[in-house]
């Protein structure tokens, strides 16, 4: 009996000691043991060749495909991987690369890239708003690559000056309206931000929580640009009375409105159009004061196991095949101008973008703005 008591104590002690040891070890993974000079080598200094890329009128530069082989893993699939299958087949025909696209939210993708930094499983962060790409680049988790697309785009918010990421589509915010639900509450589909404050929409508007979704942060930062920070929060306080729920998913409001659960959902227009494609009854309106937008980016994960294939994919994304198909199926606005738009989709000229809004600039303001939203608005729920 005595021995068992003593042992029990010891077990507890050892576990506590082990925990402390585990916490206190300053560098658990990598410790430098010795350091020695081993090799000297002649260096061949080559002149860096700066290639000029001439952008022709019928846009994208066709790359002569060089078979690469192997596989390629894309993180944060833009949309249903099945629908991208056609593109993967085209890509495979050109480069002999098998593409796997992992469907995940941008947050999941980021968390995984961070967690897997010593042993990257993915090769390319494909899609998701450029906020993610900006953050990843800042953490040194992506590989710069100035490919066809980067050279094609003018300097500005759509690409990273150092080539860490490149924008390849635009997404614009719209109001998803359920005609059936609107009829039930005897209201019209709102056409402006001011309209949303009408008490007739009380308990009928859904939007994601900015803390939970990039879509909703796009709205928040857009309104800050439009009204100024304090006035934007004043607006949110008023809007809060009409909001039925703050969803956790950015595209859920589009889905909820399309399913007739609520009258108005605030979401990306392409997410609303995807619902329309499924035969659901939902209408899109754009706010007249101005629409916030996102730039979807692509970047190569540092330490990618299939670097050549990754680079080829990044170039492929700016090719006509991809840009057209992407617009056709996902309805996002192509960044490459001159791409023939699919029927029923709209170009940037069709909407009034908020003047001077730069999503990349607001990437840095994310934490303070969301913290303020949480303490002022989020707490009321």
């Amino acid at each position, binding site marked *: 009996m005595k021995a068992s008591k003593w042992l029990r104590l010891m077990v507890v002690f050892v576990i506590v000691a082990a925990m402390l040891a585990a916490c206190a070890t300053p560098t658990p993974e990598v410790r430098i043991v010795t350091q020695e000079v081993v090799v000297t080598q002649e260096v061949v200094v080559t002149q860096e060749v700066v290639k000029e890329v001439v952008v022709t009128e019928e846009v994208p530069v066709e790359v002569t495909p060089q078979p690469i082989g192997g596989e390629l893993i894309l993180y944060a699939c833009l949309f249903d991987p*099945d629908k991208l299958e056609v593109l993967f087949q085209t890509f495979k025909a050109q480069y002999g690369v098998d593409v796997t696209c992992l469907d995940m939210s941008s947050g999941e993708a980021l968390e995984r890239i961070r967690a897997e930094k010593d042993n990257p499983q993915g090769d390319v962060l494909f899609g998701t708003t450029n906020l993610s790409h900006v953050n990843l680049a800042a953490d040194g988790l992506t590989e710069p690559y100035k490919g066809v697309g980067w050279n094609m785009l003018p300097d500005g918010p759509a690409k990273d000056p150092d080539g860490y990421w490149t924008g390849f589509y635009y997404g614009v915010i719209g109001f998803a309206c359920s005609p059936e639900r609107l009829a039930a509450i005897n209201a019209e589909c709102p056409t402006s931000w001011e309209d949303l404050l009408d008490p007739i929409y009380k308990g009928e508007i859904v939007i994601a929580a900015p803390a939970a979704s990039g879509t909703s942060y796009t709205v928040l930062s857009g309104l800050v640009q439009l009204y100024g920070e304090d006035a934007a929060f004043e607006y949110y306080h008023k809007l809060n009375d009409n909001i039925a729920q703050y969803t956790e998913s950015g595209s859920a409001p589009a*889905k909820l409105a399309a399913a007739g659960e609520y009258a108005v959902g605030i979401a990306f227009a392409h997410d609303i159009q995807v619902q329309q494609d499924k035969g659901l009854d939902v209408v899109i309106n754009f706010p007249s004061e101005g629409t916030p937008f996102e730039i979807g980016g692509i970047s190569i994960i540092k330490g990618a196991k299939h670097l050549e294939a990754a680079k080829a994919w990044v170039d492929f994304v700016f090719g006509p095949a991809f840009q057209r198909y992407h617009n056709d199926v996902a309805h996002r606005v192509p960044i490459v101008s001159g791409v023939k738009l699919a029927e029923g989709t709209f170009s940037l000229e069709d909407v009034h973008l908020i003047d001077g809004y730069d999503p990349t600039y607001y990437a840095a303001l994310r934490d303070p703005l969301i913290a303020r939203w949480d303490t002022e608005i989020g707490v009321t729920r």
Partner: protein
Amino acid sequence: MARILSYRQELSDSQKRRFLFIALLIAELAILIFIATRLIQVNTVVDRVEVIGNQEFTYYKNVLIGDPPLLILIIIGLILPLASRRIRHEPVLLVTVQVIIVSLIVFVFWPLAKVFIEAFKSEYLAQGFSLIQFQKLLTKPSVWKAFTNTMILGITTSVLATVIGTLIAYTLTLTNLPGKKLLRNLTILPLLSPPFAVSFAFIMLFGRRGLITWDIFHITGWNIYGPQGIILVQLISDTPLVILILSSVFASISRNLEEAAEDLGGTPFYVLRTVTFPLVTPAILTAGLLTFISSISDFGNPMLVGGGFQMLATQAYIQMIEMFDLQMGAALAMLLVIPAFIAFVIQNWISNRKSYITVTSGAVTGYIRQQPTWIKAILYSITTFMAFMTVLLYGSIFVGAAVNAWGFDYTLTARNVTGLLTAIPQIKNSLIVSVGSGIVGGIIGIVIAWLVSRKNFPGKSVIDFSATVMLAIPGTVVGIGYIVAFNAAPYFWTGTFFIIIIAYAFRRLPVGLRTSVAAQKQIDPTLEEASLDLGASRLRTFTKITFPLLNRAFFAGVIYIFIRSMTDLSAAVFLNAGSTQLYTVRMFRVMVTGTPSEGAAFAGLLIIIILVALAILSKLTGKSFIDLFRIS
């Protein structure tokens, strides 16, 4: 030959034991050295390259790649059992205890410790120690709101589910009402789908634009989004587990005891209160604990029907998955762990205070009890209502999958079903993972259960606790923990089936263990003692007496882990990778973004797959379909 034989006979028992013991130690040392070489490796890598003039100097350095803290823990785990004379004297026990301790350290303690270590750092993957995350956490008013919300909801769901589940289990096992078999199959149906599928079907039927609430009754003021919706949905998805656990216990209660009480003049109610109820108390507490933890760590349902109702698990999910803040998520998860831990301790404490032995040789079990008619009426209406709800919900899933767009266009189409063809690789992955984790978890569960309920040795309670602690950890934290602990050198386990199988096996181990322990507690040790007294070895006693008696508990454990792995979402989200993408992950995405009909097709297929798997299992084991579910 004769010399050797006679020499052997000269060896005393204690000498034999000593030889065996030393041989064991040598073997273990060899294994340990092998593990050590894998856990700590020296790699030569390029440190930096300097160019001086036209010469390039490459500096190399030796780096230690590995996990020394874990190695130390493993060594401690191997040495600890040696300290006890009682363990030392039984080689089988010694090896079992060592293997169990080491695997618990590596696959339970270490991933969780890594999450906690990360949570206490000032910055993700930084070094050192900091309380910044906790400051951030404790100063947030929304966190306390989420905490109270979670607790109130958890307790409500747990109490309601346990009461309803117990009543239904009683009805299904100990009454003579008609259609019991059908009702039992129907009431446990929600176990065959992910919990969030219940929410999904619930919205299809009872949403603001649900088939029943809108299309049929046109209720405009109706709203299921909120805590009331979460409770309803969790009741439907959690009660089956209570029914399962309680049915097996009710079925195994010896009629003899009750008969004795009745013969002595006890009224049926008096017998129920003083004999039957105390016998099922541990099972009720287990069920209550499981539903409480399942409720507080659930995020699929709150995400679908919560309507923005703040809960700790969803907050942790958002922090980790949307805010990219693993540390904050881990800190929130720790807040979630505390009440779960308290519930766990209370449950353990009450269960351990009493002795529950009912199965003796020649016991009569599963007899029908007589009840007054009004009690029968109540029991029967509760049970049929539950069965009716599941029929409605799952019926809507299958109907929804067959129509164009649920709610708008009810023309039949094969579109949603043919869309499932693209999910074949994910189905294959999920099956590999679930079968694997079921077998691994079932075996570990029964071994630990045997240790805990049959053996007496110091540190037993620590093993029991460690094996069950996973129960209180949200799946999301398990996923993150495994990634953080095993992604880097020297493991590189991320993206493999191995890591998912192990994670699921240990994540669901507690239930396999609890059912096995409950089953073992019901078996009278005299049966084993008799076998030993008649000269059978311990191993023989285990395989011939203990295991057959535990057979059902074992298969129930395997099936439980299989189904839970097939339907898990929270850990899957983090653990699956390119070639190992799991079915539920795709299914959840489809449910959040797709039409009701598309989501319904995904849910329907999963249910069919699980049913087919169960049918195959029942063929293989020769047990009837429903017996596989029974734990007795």
